[in-house]
């Protein structure tokens, strides 16, 4: 079993300054399993990812922190080092360059940095990497479009769900209500209150 006390400390530490760092970590799907977490990073400014919020699935192996955490984008993202198919990440510190003195927060911050500075020479997604190198404007447009399409709505919805749930409504009901009003938070609140 991995070092539970360290992971707990990491979570507290990371979420303390999430407003500044733009990264945060929560238990996955509101579960209670410390080995399955969900990271959130905001898209860096003046990149095609600006304005997006990206969710990352984090799984901790039993050897953590002596073995690297497994991370994968949940939110679809158009980036040379991230698979457009399944969100797999190509980043050295998640592989052989992992060090036990690194933390989940540093790893998420590195992912943020990766969004700002792609490394197309060591690609995870060959198609994206080729586009990045050969048709940069098209790449920027596609990445921006993907951010708009996947990283905004999904997170906006997530956020709205979280807020409404925190007001005391059951999550299932919140989700279906938001769905029925096309994501309009105020309409959903009205509907929830009147039902």
């Amino acid at each position, binding site marked *: 079993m991995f070092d539970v*006390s360290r992971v707990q400390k990491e979570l507290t530490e990371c979420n303390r300054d999430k407003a500044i760092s733009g990264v945060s970590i929560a238990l996955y799907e509101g579960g209670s399993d410390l080995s399955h977490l969900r990271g959130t990073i905001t898209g860096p400014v003046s990149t095609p990812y600006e304005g997006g919020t990206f969710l990352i699935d984090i799984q901790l192996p039993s*050897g953590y922190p*002596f*073995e690297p955490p497994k991370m994968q984008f949940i939110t679809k993202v158009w980036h040379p080092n991230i698979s457009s198919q399944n969100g797999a990440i190509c980043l050295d510190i998640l592989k052989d*360059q992992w*060090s036990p*003195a690194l933390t989940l927060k540093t790893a998420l911050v590195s992912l943020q940095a990766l969004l700002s500075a792609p490394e197309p020479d060591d690609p995870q997604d060959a198609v994206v990497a080729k586009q990045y190198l050969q048709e940069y404007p098209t790449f920027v447009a596609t990445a921006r479009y993907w951010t708009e399409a996947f990283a905004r709505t999904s997170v906006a919805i997530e956020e709205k769900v979280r807020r409404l749930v925190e007001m005391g409504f059951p999550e299932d009901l919140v989700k279906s209500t938001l769905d029925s009003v096309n994501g309009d938070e105020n309409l959903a609140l009205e509907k929830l209150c009147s039902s």
Partner: protein
Amino acid sequence: MAEYEDCPSSSDVEEGDCYLSDQEDAIEESVLQGLEDRREEESHWSLSSVITKESLLAAQKEDLRKVMELFALKEQHARTLLIHYRWDVERIFELLDQKGRERLFSEAGVSNVENKILSTSPTPVMCTVCFENVIENAVTEMDCGHSFCNECWTEHFIVKINDGQSRRIRCMAPKCNAVCDEEVIRNLVSAKYPDVADRFDRFLLESYIEDNNKVKWCPSVPHCGNAIRIEGDIYCEVECTCGIQFCFNCSSEAHSPCSCLMWELWTKKCQDESETVNWITVNTKPCPKCHKPVEKNGGCNLVACICGQAFCWLCGGATGRDHTWSSISGHSCGRFKEDQAKRTERARRDLYRYMHYHNRYKAHTDSLKQESNLKETIQGKISISENKESKIKDYTWVINGLSRLFRSRRVLSYSYPFAYYMFGDELFKDEMTPQERELKQNLFEDQQQQLESNVEKLSMFLETDFQFFSDDEVMDIMRHVINLSNVVDRLCKQMYQCIENDLLYPLQRATHNIAPYKSKGLEKASELSVCWDSDQSLTSMKTSLDDHYVQWDPTQNRIGSTSHKRHCEHQLHGSSSSDDSGCSSRKRARTSSHSGASFFDLNMPAEVIDKI
């Protein structure tokens, strides 16, 4: 020449100018040849020595000491350096000039020890891995200056050792390239997991074999426990003290004059016989009526099955029997296309070519197997001869002739796969013009044929029942055997020279290294001699390690080894209970090969060796 007329062998073979009829010439020739040998072998010298369980530590210490003395280093730092540079002491000396000490060390992960600052803070410090405050004596600082708590270091080491990375365990600090001090690793790990510490030590010891270009495990199955160290050219064939002969470069059976690549391709080809499969699929089609495979005969595309059904070769559909060259009655599939016919032709040609070479290769390996049975028969004949009324008492020429026969037969059989690749399209398609290729092929095949006919003659003489012959007849056979032995030896040598100088050397792109011809057969690897000087610690270390490695089994617990996987299984079954089986089998093999084989040449394919 006349004297051979009445001898049964000479009627069907040509007497080339290579067959020396005069024995004095032969002797003179062999003296000259001897001089040439030495010249030849100087360019390809290799010395092999065997590293046993007992001498491994000594061999490693020898190199360690050189490096420790040169740089005034601690043993663990010397080891880190040597592991990084693959135990190549000469290379380290070279790189010292090129890179300088600082870079040489840092690239290998050896920290500059002088820079170490001893921290003296008495207060508890926070370990940045477990985020706990720990008292200072529970913290260990590496040479690179990074410190973490002992618990965390230990976990880190265990994960790395279990992961098979014992030889280069890096510091835990991010981006720190320093390799952890093996002494620290040993101490911390053994305090908690003594068995893992043992494994760590064994990994370090075996690094001398596994991370070393000049040392290879003996490929024997079950494993004899030895490794072979080479000095000089690594493209050579060696013989372990267990009796097995192998190509040092690729660890498969000795295969010269084939290059390693040729041999690899050839064995693969023989295994799957893809050509045959290919030929059958291209050349037969199932009958639309009875579904038996039917072979096409001739250029006609209307084929008939033995069941009487006629069908169209191109589409497989049933047809009537009337047809012309370009159409079949009652049928218009329109698939009379050139390329189909060409493809068939090509597949057929490729198969015939492969079969040509394979049949000859096979014939000679089969002969080799049969001739290896001669060993006993000949021993019997010799003892009859020695006991009969005769003035001839010395029969070593028979034994020598037999050795020569095996060696040359071996060369002959491997010369066929060589020719298959040398003159085929697979490896050197664009390296030669068709004219060049034909010229070279003729040159080579002339030599091959000469060798072949003389080897057969030698074989024939050795198979005679000389024990019943008169002294004069025996003398005659002896002359033939001695002459032919010299001739085939020279022809083998010529063939290797031709391959190196005339065939391979002019090629631009291809690099095929062929292990040199050894006229006297492969030399058995010598026992490694390391001088044990007055170094007391060395001796005591050896004893303690010997106790440590009672469970010697180089194939156990190996992670990420390459060619050894297949020995592993045997070994794990064979000797998991004790080391006795591994040890004694080695000793047994060694004694038998020393005593029994003193005259007998094992220079033959491994498959033959198995059956003797």
